[in-house]
């Protein structure tokens, strides 16, 4: 320790710290600060006793209050479940029509369905359910397998062409490469395009119409309006899932592509699928 040094001006002892000739006065700490400091020390001791604090080899001291952040989280989650529990049970026990008709259940199911949709469905159908080529738009009113809530539920729960689900929706268009000659394929394609109001060469359309009646109506319907029981798409409307334009249609006739949608029932559970059905039904195309 250096010798005591008393500051001349103030008469107060200095700490002995000096910087560029400036010395630090050794003033006492303010009392309020000191008492706060002591109070903090007392607090920390009490805290260490009351709460888990001291780490041991495999664990830590439990603390007198028995507090645990995991238990708190579990309690919070239980509380959240209790808060919505009644509604989830109601959704589970109600029919889809009842859920849609009840404003509270409808709102809850739509919100829950939207959340489940974002997690599970957006990779194929897009965040807004607008789909893309090969992936159906869920906003429009064109439904391959039906657009009422029950049909939607069935599709979501069991999927389409999902080999793992015995109740899955299955339909497969045969490849017409071996059945129709290339010329005939072009004629059918010309006829199909003419159905949506685009004039085509009658020399192509007329034989195409006959070929369509012979080969296609069983699945696509006599007026090409589609068949929901078989998942046969309507070819007379404005919406094209797989192909757009004559060349693409011809390609689809020769070697059709088929989409696969997994079954979600086993994976997400009945309540989530119900909510998904209600949500998709609310997008605007629901029947």
């Amino acid at each position: 320790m250096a010798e005591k040094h008393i500051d001349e001006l103030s008469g107060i002892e200095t700490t002995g710290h000096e910087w560029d000739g400036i010395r630090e006065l050794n003033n006492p700490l303010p009392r309020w600060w000191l008492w706060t400091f002591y109070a903090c020390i007392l607090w920390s001791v009490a805290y260490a006793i009351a709460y888990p604090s001291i780490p041991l080899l495999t664990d830590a001291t439990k603390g007198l209050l028995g507090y645990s952040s995991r238990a708190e989280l579990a309690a919070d989650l239980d509380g959240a479940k209790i808060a919505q529990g009644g509604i989830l049970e109601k959704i589970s026990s109600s029919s889809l029509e009842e859920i849609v008709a009840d404003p509270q259940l409808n709102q809850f199911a739509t919100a829950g369905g939207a959340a489940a949709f974002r997690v599970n469905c957006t990779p194929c159908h897009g965040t807004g359910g607008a789909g893309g080529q090969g992936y159906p738009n869920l906003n429009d009113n064109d439904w391959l397998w039906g657009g009422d809530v029950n049909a939607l539920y069935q599709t979501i729960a069991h999927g389409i062409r999902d080999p793992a689900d015995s109740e899955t929706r299955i339909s497969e268009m045969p490849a017409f490469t071996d059945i129709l000659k290339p010329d005939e394929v072009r004629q059918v394609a010309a006829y199909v395009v003419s159905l949506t109001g685009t004039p085509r060469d009658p020399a192509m359309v007329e034989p195409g119409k006959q070929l369509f009646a012979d080969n296609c109506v069983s699945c696509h319907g006599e007026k090409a309006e589609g068949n929901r029981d078989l998942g046969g798409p309507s070819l007379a409307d404005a919406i094209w899932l797989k192909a757009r334009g004559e060349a693409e249609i011809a390609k689809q006739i020769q070697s059709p592509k088929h989409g696969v949608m997994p079954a979600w029932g086993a994976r997400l559970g009945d309540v989530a699928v119900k909510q998904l059905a209600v949500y998709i039904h609310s997008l605007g195309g629901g029947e």
Partner: protein
Amino acid sequence: MNLYTSPALGPSDASVERIDVQPVHSPGKPLYEKRKKIFPKRAEGRFRRFKWLVMLITLGIYYLTPWIRWDRGPFAPDQAVLVDLASRRFYFFFIEIWPQEFFYVAGLLVMAGFGLFLVTSAVGRAWCGYTCPQTVWVDLFLVVERFFEGDRNARIKLDAAPWSLDKLWKRVAKHATWLAIAVATGGAWIFYFADAPSLAFDFVTGQAALVAYSTVAILTATTYVLGGLLREQVCIYMCPWPRIQAAMLDESSLVVTYNDWRGEPRSRHAKKAAAAGQPVGDCVDCNACVAVCPMGIDIREGQQMACITCALCIDACDGVMDKIGKPRGLIAYATLDEYDANMALATSGGTTAIDPAGVRNPDGSFIDKVRHFDWRVIFRLRTLIYFGVWSAVGLGLVFSLLSRDRLEVNVLHDRNPQFVLESDGSIRNGYTIRLLNMIPEPRTIMVSMEGLPEATMKIAGVADVPGRLFAVQVEPDKTLALKVFVTLPKDAVSSEAVDFHFVAEDRPSHEKDSYSAVFNTPGARK
């Protein structure tokens, strides 16, 4: 107005007792020092009476306002002033404010700011001296202190006395009363945020929310500590206002002033000094002004930051002047201009020491050249500008309040997808429409489209049949979000995005609001 008039001018032999008191706060005092207690003496006079009145009014407003009832019908609370945080509504008598109308509160704050500038530039720190909560509550706490412990001398004696039963009960009674006032203060605050009678019942029976108890506890603590224990230290060390204030005072602002041009040289033995032919001012150095000061300053040391201009020293000095038969106003509200002018008279333009003869006629009355306060200086460019801005903001708020809508419609276009192609080739756009029914009555709002003549709309949960006009029930004082689908037939679809309007109308009241929206098509999006 002449502040220097005196009711009883005439010689008096009444001797004035000199009070033994030192200013606690003084411009030259060291920065680091243990607090010295202040024992303000009770003052009497017109400013004290005015302060009692202000205290009565301000405390009355604070404590009683939440209990005023105001009938708004069955769908809204009947409390005149209520900040309903849970429902996000602010009620003020006939005005109801929604969160998006919070700018009214901002406007009031702007008015409060300019009002403070106006008041300060005209009459100095009137806010500090009369209406600041710190001043009012300290004043109230001093009343309690005086009630239990007596006036200044008794309190000094009690403070110095060793602990005894008598001292103990006086101190306990004082602090208990302070705490009771503090609890009432904290308690009154929470009644602004909930229905006062039911909250009071819940609070007493232990059923109120934790936040109510903790708010009361915090405000009780701040009231007790700031008003009872810290007192003048809040103004001197904690409050920024005294520092800002200096920028707002000018030469024409009224401030509490010791008129040393007539007071100096002060003398305790005026008669002897006068007999000896020495110049004698009006100040008898009785220290009455120091003894009554709640801030512990000596106003005779000039304008200083610690002075809150409570004017109690004026009362004290006026009492003394009356007693010795001198005109009032040795300490008075004065502007720097008039003070300087009078000072120049007394000091021959600053070249000599103060000579009372410079401002007096041989018979003792003031010479005509002595300047007195002229109320016209209040109306100067600066105050007129402040008043102009203040009233412009006020008028703007009133106009905006009277012409504001109580029915609104907001529209949000679906972001994804921007449009939907239907199987018949028509195009559909989705919107979320929010109807705001901002009156406490249920209303039937007609929702329709203006423009886009070929389009039809559907509203989920309201109508499944397409149409262009729908009646929607909206609950009182609530908003309602609607999912609306607008469909444009294939033939009408153009390659341009089309502007149109959603219109919401309350037919009985003819209230109407519209919101511009865009219909997007595959050809163009906005």
